[in-house]
């Protein structure tokens, strides 16, 4: 049995040293963290670089995403901090990468607040990334953005597989909201639009009448 992680060789070496040489320090650090809460990690320059590398329309974005995905998997806390610091970039491509990373890593109130700010982005891809991060954490502010997306046929940048907005919005609503208002059966733009109207009416009528079930990982209608 081996433990798979996506790391650069030098990272593995550093970790090995930590494990072998600093067990006592780690143990005491963990003990302190258990009492005091962990301090925010310091972002490593390569992580911020992995996000800001999106600024110049990349020749091969797959390579950039592969690097970023590996960092998200291995060092989510550090990536979260790096993504937060990149959220003030004037370049939408950088904010897209930052929102993507933040949506996958957010653990702090500050990160959640940044995602909520992301709902105000003008680009629908950015708005939906923020909404995805929020709805998967039980934040209902994402729902109206996802309903709005059901009316959009706009392609999402860097979506994999390539999708338009309504397809992605439909997927998230189906998975994270129990009431479905015909969205399951609606599988084309026109019929999804009809389901969206029913969703919208429901949302306006009882926006806070739903509750997040952390066990089931989805919104349920509040019991009467």
């Amino acid at each position, binding site marked *: 049995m081996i*433990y798979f992680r996506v790391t650069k060789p030098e990272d593995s070496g550093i970790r090995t040293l930590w494990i072998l040489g600093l067990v006592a320090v780690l143990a005491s650090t963990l003990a302190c963290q258990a009492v005091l809460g962990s301090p925010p990690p310091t972002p490593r320059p390569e992580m911020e670089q992995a996000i800001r590398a999106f600024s110049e329309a990349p020749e*091969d974005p797959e390579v950039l995403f592969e690097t970023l995905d590996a960092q998200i998997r291995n060092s989510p806390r550090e990536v979260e901090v790096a993504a937060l610091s990149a959220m003030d970039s004037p370049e939408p491509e950088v904010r897209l990468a930052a929102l993507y990373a933040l949506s996958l890593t957010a653990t702090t109130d500050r990160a959640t607040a940044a995602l909520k700010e992301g709902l105000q982005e003008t680009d629908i891809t950015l708005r939906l990334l923020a909404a995805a991060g929020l709805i998967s954490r039980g934040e209902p502010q994402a729902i109206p953005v996802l309903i709005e997306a059901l009316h959009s046929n706009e392609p999402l940048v860097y979506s*994999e597989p390539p999708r338009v907005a309504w397809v992605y919005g439909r997927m998230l609503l189906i998975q994270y909201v129990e009431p479905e208002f015909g969205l399951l059966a609606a599988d084309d733009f026109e019929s999804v639009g009809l389901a969206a109207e029913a969703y919208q009416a429901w949302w306006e009528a009882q926006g806070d009448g739903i509750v997040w079930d952390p066990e089931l990982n989805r919104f349920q209608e509040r019991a009467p």
Partner: protein
Amino acid sequence: MKRGRIALLSLVAGIAVFSGALRSGEASPSPKNQISRDGFTVTITVPIDVLGLRGKTLRNVETGEWVEAAAYWESGAEKIWNDGLESFKFRGCYSLRVDLDIAPRGEFEAVPEGRHWVWTEPLGFRSKVYHGGGKNEDTSLPYRESRWGHWGPIQPGSVAHETGHFLGLGDDYRDIRDEDGNLLGHEEHPGREGTMMANYRESEPPDRVDQELVDRLGEMLAELEPLPPCITGFWDGTQLEQEGESETEAQVFFLIELKPDENGEIRGTATGDFNLYGTHVEGDCSFSYSTSAPIELDIQATGSGEGPYTIEALQDQKVNEVQRHYLCEQAIDLTLDWDVGLLIEDVLFEDGQWEYKDEADHIVLGYADPAEFDG
């Protein structure tokens, strides 16, 4: 007395094929995707550990029910692949099957060596498999190394597409960019529209498998496992001879059927007819003659790698006959003595397609199972 000649009919054609031992039910030494063969059924087992999937449910978009994600993905994606593969054969012989082995694991659980791994994430904005090749490249790397990716709350159709990457297939769509390099969207490669690895932005991915996908998969398997071909076709040949004013025209029509035997040797038969027409002229006298005979030759194909292949008869068949004719009222016993053989050299296939070669000799050979060949 007039004697016939050897009808040794040889041709130059071209085919690219692999040869090697056919081993039934034997797993290849490939450490990741496993290839096993049972006769002419080749199964690719794709072992994927999915971190964070244990205990997770997904909504089945067909029924609306919440279902256990691992089983839903495994059975759904496997069915999509195998339903699609069912109608096609690789190199005329081999039915390909996919055995998807998805193991749900805890988020940071150890993954046994020899398995691919995927981590689950809640967005599903980019469900990816980094298969080791470029976006649009096929690579056999997943058959030699563990590969990885991450999947969101996707449906079996998307899992089937992503499994295609673990099978080594690249995407059949490309990015469209503006003059500044900004991504505008995607378009399918010409001819790939509606197939499994093509674009699927409007809904779930298409589940159509076609011969090209089967051939691309098979070529990767053939890097690791010899898959000698089934070759079927025909040869409608003519050989003319002239001696003085006498003429002979020999015609053969062969149905050629070759298939790997249990030792991996490509053996079969060439069956058909031999027809001979002639005119014998001496001075002012002449007579015409003809004969025909059914032919059945045991044949084999030899070659390796990408060819060339040689198809030849293991033994010629004799056609021997004595006919009584009259040359200006003089009785003559004409002995027709022919050896009918077969030799086709430099046979190469191009991408598994039918090979029409040398129209003058009317040879058509291609990948096809003799049992299913209808000419």
